[in-house]
């Protein structure tokens, strides 16, 4: 009989019937029947012979060699537990494949659950890192201020810009904005009051809020 069934087996004494079998598949069935009857040598032979086949079935569902080997070992244990459920009249491969497939699915599920629980830390840390020179609170306040200024009426915004941001002398700012100095002062004052109110501080200046 051809030595297609794996290394080391040619050293084993095979039952006479096997030598007449051309079909490798028949050899496994004969061994398994003997194993069901308690023959350890035949059991070892059939298990060793079918491990490559079991690996092949597991590889359809698993990629990592470690997982594949995991599944193959689970399969061997299940084969051992369920060896009485194989009907000797039936071919052995489908029975083996069903068990191997089931165990591979179980390994895949176990790993899926494990991976789902592990959190990748690096990307999360990068997400939380603040922009240089700015911590969260300051960034938020600056943003709020920008929004508040944008909401000011046009005249107040201009006044604020000229007087406070560009720091022009009042006379020059008035000339540029087309307002009188007095009007500019009022507009600036109102703008600040509005901003304070908007940003949540109390308004000590009093005076009506309105367009100027």
């Amino acid at each position: 009989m051809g030595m297609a069934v794996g290394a080391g087996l040619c050293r084993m004494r095979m039952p006479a019937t096997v030598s007449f079998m051309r079909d490798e598949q028949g050899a496994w069935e004969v061994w398994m029947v003997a194993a069901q009857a308690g023959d350890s040598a035949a059991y070892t032979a059939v298990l060793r012979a079918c491990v490559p086949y079991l690996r092949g079935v597991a590889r359809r569902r698993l990629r990592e060699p470690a997982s594949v080997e995991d599944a193959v070992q689970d399969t061997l244990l299940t084969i051992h537990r369920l060896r009485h459920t194989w009907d000797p009249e039936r071919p052995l491969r489908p029975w083996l494949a069903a068990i191997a497939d089931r165990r591979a699915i179980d390994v895949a599920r176990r790993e899926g659950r494990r991976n789902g629980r592990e959190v990748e830390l690096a990307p999360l840390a990068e997400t939380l890192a603040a922009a240089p020179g700015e911590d969260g609170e300051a960034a938020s306040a600056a943003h709020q201020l920008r929004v508040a200024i944008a909401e000011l009426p046009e005249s107040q915004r201009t006044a604020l810009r000229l007087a406070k941001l560009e720091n022009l002398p009042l006379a020059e700012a008035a000339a540029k904005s087309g307002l009188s100095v007095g009007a500019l002062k009022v507009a600036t004052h109102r703008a600040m009051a509005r901003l304070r109110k908007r940003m949540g501080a109390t308004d000590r200046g009093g005076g009506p809020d309105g367009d100027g």
Partner: protein
Amino acid sequence: MGTDDMIAQLAADLTPVRPVAPWRRTISWLLLAMALIAGMVAWHGFRPDLHERMLMPAEQVQWLASVIAGVLAALAAARMAEPGRSEAWALLPLPAVIVWLTGMGWGCLADIARIGPAALTLGTSWSCLGFIVGLGVPLLGILMFLLKDGASLRPGPVSALSGLAAAALCSAGLSLFHHLDAILMILVWHGMAVALVTGIGAVSGRLALAR
């Protein structure tokens, strides 16, 4: 532990086993189920109008379909409990179930034709549900126990089919002694009970037998 070491370990642990064909156990279960159900029928006595009802071809077809569905579901469970058998075996009882349901649906229409919309009033029949579930669930448990080893790879389908088998046979038995004329009642109450026992099978199978 390396795979080779494991093989050596298992070989050292080897004891002789006798191969068990699940279908043999299922036949035993069928005989047990029929004996129990026959016992319940004998205890309650046949319904007085059984003779007339069984003369109606629609009744015959429907009743036979439920019996056949039960038997085929049990055999399908046995096949599914053998690792390596095709998943298509699960469909074995399907034609009989379809005949059973359509038979009852047809009977509903006939009832409506006969006595008008009054046929559609649905009363309660908790005793129907109670009998099918009360006898069906223990029978389901027994079949699950008999098939448990092979079933461990496909516990859901094996147990669901076992539930269907148990419930269908109980439903057939119940029809022999229970007074229910309105086919809609049978359709709903037997149908619900069968679905319930099948569902109990599917869920408990996964919980109890998956290994």
